[in-house]
């Protein structure tokens, strides 16, 4: 498998395009890199819809929060969630957090863990930097591509 840097912004743009056009798959090729974004018609997206519609809090506050979150995920220093799941800011409920705002971090350091169905996935720093903002609370549900943290 060829290795290349994943362009998160591009994937998000393609995902948005998928939604707008109601297609299930888009493939994009440029400079020897090919990215295919597909959505499963029976996937999570669909199963989430009825919940949002019947949820009590579905309202403008939530829509506003969603807009802010998607703006954050476009931030160049955003660390985004690699999967749908539950985010943990510490290794155990009583442990100190992996990182705090203002911490200097090193490439490869664990920033957050995202769990889905007892599969624990540590989200690692891709480069050195400083934690500018932490956007999730311990135990928050997170979506694929959602910004978890801003690193500068």
């Amino acid at each position: 498998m060829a290795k290349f840097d994943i362009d998160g912004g591009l994937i998000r743009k393609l995902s948005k395009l998928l939604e707008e056009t109601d297609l299930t798959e888009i493939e994009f090729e440029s400079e020897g890199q090919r990215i295919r974004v597909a959505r499963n018609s029976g996937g999570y997206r669909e199963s989430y819809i009825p919940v949002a519609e019947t949820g009590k809090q579905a309202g403008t506050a939530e829509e506003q929060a969603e807009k802010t979150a998607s703006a954050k995920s476009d931030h160049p220093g955003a660390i985004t969630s690699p999967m749908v799941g539950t985010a943990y800011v510490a290794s155990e409920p009583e442990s100190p957090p992996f990182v705090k705002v203002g911490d200097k971090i090193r490439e490869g350091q664990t920033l957050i863990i995202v769990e889905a169905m007892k599969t624990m996935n540590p989200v690692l720093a891709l480069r050195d930097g400083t934690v500018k903002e932490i956007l999730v609370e311990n135990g928050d549900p997170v979506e694929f591509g959602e910004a978890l943290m801003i690193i500068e």
Partner: protein
Amino acid sequence: MEDNPKLDELYHLLKLDVVGSTNEEAARLGREGAPAGTLVWAKSQTGGKGRRGRDWVSPGGNLYASLLLRPNILLAQAPEISFVAAVAVFNTLCFILPQTARIHMKWPNDIIVEGHKIAGILLESSAQGEMLDWLVVGIGINIASSPDKTPFPATSLHESGAPHAKTADVLGRFADSFKRVMETWTNEGFAPIRKRWLEFAWCLGEEIEVKTEQETLRGVFCDIDPSGALILDLGGGDKRIITAANVIRGFPT
């Protein structure tokens, strides 16, 4: 040696008398580039772990094993293997326990015999971008003994109708079963795994209590979604999709 399991050639067995945690050992080997199929088996663990830092009591006589996998998949698909492992352990125990034993899977991947937990599974993944790099599937099966004073009542194979079960045989059976279920998943996808899981799900359609990192919820366990997440109906049209929690109690009618 007679107490070694018979394993398919795709497995590479690493047998240890004692280890901190087989999952940590397998993850360390994963980072070092060990091949897929590396199977770490320990007679006992000094720091066995469940989810969110809970201890997994690990005396000799029970099974503690972690399998390293490197499937070429998106990280987002890795949680499906949590159910592959559950079905494999379930099939293993169906073979070993008497036919009359009532065996179920408690969301997402605990194995329950007559309402008592007999096995637990915990996975750890590592990704390169959005692709999975490696995945460790850790399993613990109570064979000779089960812990007291656990939040959920526990049992073992010896206490549940298989008094002569041995760790090496159980590991061998599991390895066979896992290979078969993994082949189904590779060839046919998650749907048949999900179907089998739902067929033997513990408290499906019943009221359950689940403890997430933030709250304890009680509701009806309606279904799992296409990704395996638990759908809990709290009543009044409020349904939650839960990706991480402990199912701590069931209220079968």
